[in-house]
């Protein structure tokens, strides 16, 4: 409210109005006057005064009736009732009908009138300010809701895309049985995994995590599957063996992502498995926790630190080889597993993964032991990839 609102005097007695006006103008108020109820209501509609001083006894329209209409038409405008026949019954009735205050006539002192008006003005100013703030907040809130709804739509689309690109829950390639689970968090993130036959001799698998959250990170996972698809095609169509060699493959992906100038890095563990022998060659671009391998119920962590894709640094990618014996298993988990509740130290959680892999029969067992079920609320996505080689028959 930039300018102080006027005050409206409604009284049929010219002398009283004149006296009130002098007192109030001296106190700094801008004063409007009406001699009849109807005229007062009209002025009120036109000027939206801060306070109305209303005489209760007037010809034509009675003061109480004017009061009722004022209160219903302008609920935020305080009405101070003035009565020359100052009885308690008048006062009570006026207050019951919504008057803000009551002043007796003749005035015991000018200060009493001034004080009552000042308090009424302050109340009306606060009410108006409140309404203005509320309007501003509501407008801002509406804008935010609309933006949020749009983001949610984006996220849903991205999440859907992410899930559509996942491999089937259970896949068999030769003697290898692959399983996977993706437990999404509230916040869309960039966890992703895939497994596939590379040719008649080899299978490949990876687990990736795109830095950051939101639709952008999820879309980078989509770009990633396209890039990986390119290398798989190159092997089948042109005999380009890059994808059979984890180090070359990671260097290729790194260059591809850098060329796209996406400001997000990606951690990725990639392994190639020879179907006949179970021999594994792997490379790691900063994926953590490290995978666990279990042969004969003995688990080991395949420690393989290395630089993430699309991130500067002088470190090489992690590298290693291992053997998946008949009946052996491999477990990959995204870093969301380190945030699970109850919160454990990373070391304790990694040891738990190793122990679980040694004893569990299936990925369902492992998920349940980690407290992961379909609707478990999570602070970060958890992706799990489980591979088991058939026992020798």
């Amino acid at each position: 409210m930039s300018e102080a609102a006027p005050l409206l005097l409604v009284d049929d007695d010219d002398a009283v109005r004149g006296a009130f006006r002098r007192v109030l103008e001296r106190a700094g108020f801008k004063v409007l006057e009406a001699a009849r109820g109807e005229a007062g209501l009209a002025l009120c509609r036109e000027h939206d005064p801060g306070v109305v001083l209303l005489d209760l006894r007037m010809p034509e329209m009675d003061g109480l009736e004017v009061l009722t209409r004022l209160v219903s038409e302008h609920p935020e405008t305080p009405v101070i009732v003035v009565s020359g026949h100052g009885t308690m019954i008048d006062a009570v009735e006026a207050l019951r009908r919504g008057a803000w205050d009551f002043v007796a006539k003749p005035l015991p002192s000018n200060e009493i009138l001034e004080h009552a008006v000042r308090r009424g003005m302050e109340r009306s100013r606060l009410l108006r300010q409140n309404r203005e703030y509320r309007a501003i907040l509501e407008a801002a809130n509406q804008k935010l809701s609309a933006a949020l709804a749009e983001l949610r739509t984006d996220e849903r689309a991205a999440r859907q895309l992410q899930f559509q690109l996942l491999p089937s829950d259970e896949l068999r390639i030769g003697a290898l049985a692959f399983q996977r689970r993706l437990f999404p968090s509230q916040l869309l993130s960039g966890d992703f995994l895939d497994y596939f036959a590379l040719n008649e001799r080899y299978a490949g698998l990876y687990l990736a995590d795109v830095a950051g959250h939101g639709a952008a990170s999820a879309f980078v996972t989509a770009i990633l599957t396209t890039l990986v698809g390119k290398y798989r095609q190159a092997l089948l169509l042109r005999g380009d063996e890059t994808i059979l060699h984890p180090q070359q493959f990671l260097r290729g992906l790194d260059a591809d992502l850098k060329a796209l100038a996406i400001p997000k890095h990606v951690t990725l563990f990639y392994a190639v498995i020879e179907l006949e022998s179970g021999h594994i060659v792997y490379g790691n671009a900063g994926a953590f926790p490290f995978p666990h391998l279990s042969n004969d119920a003995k688990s080991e962590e395949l420690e393989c630190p290395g630089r993430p894709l699309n991130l500067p640094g002088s470190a090489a990618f992690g590298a290693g080889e291992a053997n998946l014996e008949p009946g052996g298993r491999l477990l990959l988990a995204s870093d969301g597993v380190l945030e699970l509740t109850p919160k454990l130290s990373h070391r304790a959680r990694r040891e738990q993964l190793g122990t679980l892999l040694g004893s569990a029969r299936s990925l369902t067992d492992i998920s349940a032991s980690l407290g992961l079920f379909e609707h478990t609320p999570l602070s970060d996505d958890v992706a799990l990839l489980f591979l088991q080689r058939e026992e020798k028959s």
Partner: protein
Amino acid sequence: MTLGHVTHAAHNGVHVLRYFGSVNYTLAPGLQRFLESIIHDGSVSGLVFDLSAAESLDSTNLGLMARANEEVRDAGAANSVIISSNEDIDGVLRSMGFDQSFEVVPARAEQDGNSEQVEAEAPSAAELQRTMIEAHRALMRLSEAGRLEFEPVVACLERDLSVSRA
């Protein structure tokens, strides 16, 4: 989990950033702008990331550190220093190969004044690292004596903005 924040102070061109609590992606955009502003200023002779009071850092913030390190190295500074005392954070740093692009110094060794912990490839680089750790130690001493305040990075940004608007 404590909501994270980051503070900053500088001494002879060595900029020290102290990370507190759980530093996640919500802090990253502000931190990125801040790092860009001090790096493009051209006055950075070294960066020290003091993570000894941090509970966790998410991948977005780790990426930010790696990129900032690359930029100051391109501009001729030595590898940035990371001071860390949290086993979980150490593990994550190692898994991403940060121990090879940064000088990762355990907080205890740093407090003992044992600069021998720093191993750098060239003598001049080792000297630079020692200077950085000494600058960090000097700032910490001043701060503990109440003679210097590490400023919240957000406040630095706001001040810079008001200066550039004026």
